[in-house]
Every structure is written in structure tokens, then in C-alpha cells.
């Protein structure tokens, strides 16, 4: 036979998107402070599945996932604050033991300072310095303007600097 005509534009399947991006979404949720990053990531993919056919193009799936992870993590942290009446910092997520300990030692002060940042500033930093997103992409993920992204990022960096300075003074 001859090649069959392609009748529809080919898009990556849901399974392929999952295979390619699930670990990253778990990590994003974890870095944003989710107490159960996998729960957040799985829910994000379930929502993507609902919406996949309506996304404007292939490239929209991952930004959509990122924004859902941000929203769900934000909601989760808010929920924990309200229901557990505890300090704003989310509980430390589960990590592999020895490796986590070594990393905690190496970056203890810096990561502790990140954990203390207001959630918007933390989101902006993680999206900027871990995912290397542009301000436009960060704005889309956070649901804010690019001006807000600039503001959150600069304030976060300044806050980290102050925090590290205080740590070194101690």
C-alpha cells in the first residue's frame, strides 16, 4: 500500500506528555512547597486530560500544566494554613533520605530562606531560576502581569540577600 493520508494534525498523546513532563511537574510542585507533590502533579495531569482537546495548540499543554500546578499548590498551602492553623511554611515534602540530607547541608540557609518567602515571590523565583522561564511565561503560569513578575522576582532576590546576610552575621 501507499502512505495513508494524514487526516488530522498529529499531536503528542496524553501518554507522551505524561512520560515527558510528569517528573518535572512533581518537582515543580515540590519546589513551590506542596506537601504532596505527586498528588498535585497527578491532579494537574487529570485536568489536562479534560482540557487537552480544547488547547489551542501542542505547545499549550506544558504551560497549562505549569499554571495548574501553581494554582493547586497555592490552594493546597492556603488550605493547610486555614485548616491546620499552623505557621505559613508548608511541611517539608518527602525526599530521598541521604541525598536530601546532603543537599540540605549544602544549601541549608538559602533553601530555608526560599521556604520563608511569600508564595508569589517563591513561585516567581522557582519558575525563573529552576525552569528558566521568560517573564511572559512566568506571568502566564502565575496568572499575573509581567510587571508583577519583575516585582516579585526582584523583591525575592532582595529578601534572600537580606536573609543570607543575617545568617552570616549570626
Amino acid at each position: 500500500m501507499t502512505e495513508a493520508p494524514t487526516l488530522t494534525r498529529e499531536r503528542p498523546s496524553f501518554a507522551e506528555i505524561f512520560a515527558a513532563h510528569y517528573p518535572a511537574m512533581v518537582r515543580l510542585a515540590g519546589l513551590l512547597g506542596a506537601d504532596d507533590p505527586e498528588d498535585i502533579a497527578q491532579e494537574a495531569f487529570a485536568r489536562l486530560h479534560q482540557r487537552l482537546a480544547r488547547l489551542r495548540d501542542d505547545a499549550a499543554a506544558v504551560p497549562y500544566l505549569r499554571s495548574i500546578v501553581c494554582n493547586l499548590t497555592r490552594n493546597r498551602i492556603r488550605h493547610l494554613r486555614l485548616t491546620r492553623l499552623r505557621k505559613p511554611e508548608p511541611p517539608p515534602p518527602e525526599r530521598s533520605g541521604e541525598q536530601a540530607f546532603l543537599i540540605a547541608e549544602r544549601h541549608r540557609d538559602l533553601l530555608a530562606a526560599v521556604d520563608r518567602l511569600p508564595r508569589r515571590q517563591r513561585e516567581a523565583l522557582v519558575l525563573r531560576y529552576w525552569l528558566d522561564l521568560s517573564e511572559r511565561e512566568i506571568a502566564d503560569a502565575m496568572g499575573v502581569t509581567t510587571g508583577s513578575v519583575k516585582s516579585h522576582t526582584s523583591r525575592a532576590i532582595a529578601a534572600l540577600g537580606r536573609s543570607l546576610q543575617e545568617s552570616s552575621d549570626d
Partner: protein
Amino acid sequence: MIENDLREALRDRASTYETSPHAWLGVQQRVRRTRRMRWAALAAVPVATAAVIAGVPLVLSHGGADSATTGARTAPATGASPERQDAYQTQTAEHPPIGETLALVNPDDGRIMRLWFSRMPQQKGLDQPVAPDAPKYDVLCWAVQSALRGGSVAGCPMDDDPRHSGEYAWYVGGTAGKWPRADTAISYGVARAPVAKVQAVAKDGTLLPGTIYRPEGAPATVWAVTYPARAQVRAFQFSDADGKILVRMTPSKRSDELTSAKPVEPAVDLRGGLTARLYEDGTLAWLNHDEVVVGTEIMATGESLKDAIPSDWHFGRGHWFGIAPAGTARIELTLKDGRRVSADAIPDPWHRGFTLYSAPYEHAGDVYAEGYSIVCYDAEGKQTTRVDESAHPPLWTDAPIATPARPTASGPDRPGTPVTDQTGTTATGQTGPSSADQAGTSTPDQAGTSTPDQPETPSRR
């Protein structure tokens, strides 16, 4: 620079977040749950209306059709509650896996099905012994479970031509042909290099993406496509990593009719909203208002079933239904949470010695995993039969759900790679993959499997 330290710190912390091997299952379960919730919202009004008309209690909860695949072309291993023999274990003891065993989610009921390659000697026929010098081939074995009965069944079918010479991919099994038809079906089979992509071709030409799995250590890849039954898939299309279509395969045509036998008059409109129809070949079908078959049974033809089948039941498409012993006037289902569904039973009009019933039913949980009881009452309200169905928790839940192979770069150059039409044979003048390429095994061991769907006939009890 704090920015550089921050990048490193975030990267290091990110590397500590581990992902569960069950993540894919978790996502699929959430997807299914979302679908059920949306369906329930849509269905609540008509179901409630039906309940009022039928005069039976309504339980707004969810259940799925029994998706058991209960037979095999080659002798399958079976396991059943309460012993819960594991057919996968039984089958792999005899036919050990070559490489990793895949665990996929059966979209019909959300339970896990398993696929693995095993090397088997060729058997010319089921009635012939295996010759000592019989050539061996790698075949794709499968194991599925029955949510309704809690059992499992496995098989290692081999084709008449287990070499599959010249074929890039072939069909092994699926759920598309089973009755009752499920909303979502899965088809799967074996693929060889350089196949990197599979798509189902719907009746209207839409391409539905599938998945290629590369079980570690296995002699070939496995393809699988999950698709809505309404798509009426007509073919499966296989491409290489560059998107070049290698082959388009048309599965053998399956009948759209449940049976070719004539119906036995009359059909029975049951109070719970279903219609029961018996056919001359012994097929008993339950149909909903849209004439969609929601359940089937195969009855022995001619003889009375008064003692042979005391009771049988099904859950599917918003109904609980089945047959009960003669003399039953009312039958009641009690769920683990104490909720009850009741149905009036009526004598079968074909004088076969049983009664029929149906009732609207939905259940938010997994009724099979929870267990339930069924009690029959006669016209005086006296209990005549009681069945306490034990819980049938899903099998193989500890098996990591297969993660799809990530798209890879194009494989080795294969000049003259043929384009074959597997609806027939390799096109004239073209050759498929060489024998040495087949499934990565050395001759005479070749990957090969049988072609029919896993058995899709209604279960017989």
C-alpha cells in the same frame, strides 16, 4: 552571585523529589473518576425518573460493567475467588517472562492487565503434542482480571505464522469486540523496530494517538491504543521516528451484531428499565432504552435451567440486573455501606425456569472491591436464596504501571524500508524486516503472537 547559588540549590532540591511507579495509574484513575462524576451529573435526572416509574429504590452510586475476558484461544490459566489464584503467577510459572512485564490499565474497568513476552515451542494444534524439536518463538502473553468474579485469566497465544515475517507490527488482543461494548476500548499488539508511533484510525479518519512501550529486556516493543468505542476504529497505523508511515493494519472485521440467531419471542420489558431478549442460540441479552446491549449471558439451549443457574447478576450502564431462581418475586442488593437496591423479578416468558430482574443502580465506589450481598424473596416475602459476594480487590496493584516509551530519535537507517499493507500481505516486490531483525531474537526464536481478540464471548456460568 545569589542567582547562581539559587539555581544550583533549586536544581539539587528538585532532584530529591521522587515519582511513584504507580503515577500513571493514579492519573488514569483520576481521569476516570472525573468522567464518572460528569456522567453522574448528566444521568441523575433520567435515572431518578426511571426509579420513580419503576417504583424501586434508587441508589445514586457508581459501578462498572464486568470486563472479564474469560477465555483464550490457547489454554489459559485461570484463577477465581475465593481462592484468588493468580493467573499471572500460574502462567508465568509455566511461561516465564522475557524482560519486564507491562502493567496497563484496562479502560473498561480501571483494573490492571499484564502483558509479557515468553518463549514457547510451537504447537501445531491444541490436539497435538508439542514436538521435542519444535521451534520456539517469542509470543506476547496476557493476563486480565475479572472485577465481577474476582478471578483472573491468562494466556500465551501463538499465531499460525509466529514469525510474522515481513511485518512491522501485528495485532494481539483487545477489548473492542467484547460484549457488552464498553465506552472505551483498548487494543494492543507487538511492534518491531523502527516503529516508534502508533495511531488508531477512526471511521471518520481521525487519528487517535496510541503508545509504544519498550519493556526492559523484552525482544520487541508493545503497542497499545485506548480509544472511545464510538470512534469505530477501522485501522491501526504505525510510523517510524521521523513520522514516516510504515504500515497500516486493519483488524479482522468483527460483527456489529451480538448474535446472528433469531430472537425468541417475546422480549421482556423489566420494571427496572431494561429489556431482556433471548435468542435461539441461547444468548440472553439485556438492552437499555436505546437498544444498547448492557449485559449478556449464554444459556444452554432447550433444557430447563431451574437448578443449573440459581442466580446471576451484572452491573453496568447504570443498572443492576440478572436472573434469579424460579419463584423469586423480589431480589435485593445490599452494598457494604448498608444501602439497598431492590427489584421485582418476573418469570421468564420462555419457560426456562428462572426469573428476570433489573433496577437502576449507581455506586460511587468499587462495588467489586467492597463486596455485597444479594437476597431473593418469594411472593410471601420469605427469603429463598442468599449470596454473600466477597470483596474482590484489584489484582496486581503493586505492579508498576508501564510508562510509555519516550519518543526517540530515528533508528538506524533502513534503506528500502518497505511499506506494507497488513490487511493482506507484504506488497509485491517489497520485503519487511529481515529475520535477524525480528524482535531482536536469534533465529529460530522470533516474536510472534496470535491475532484474535482476547476471547470476547459472554461468560457462561
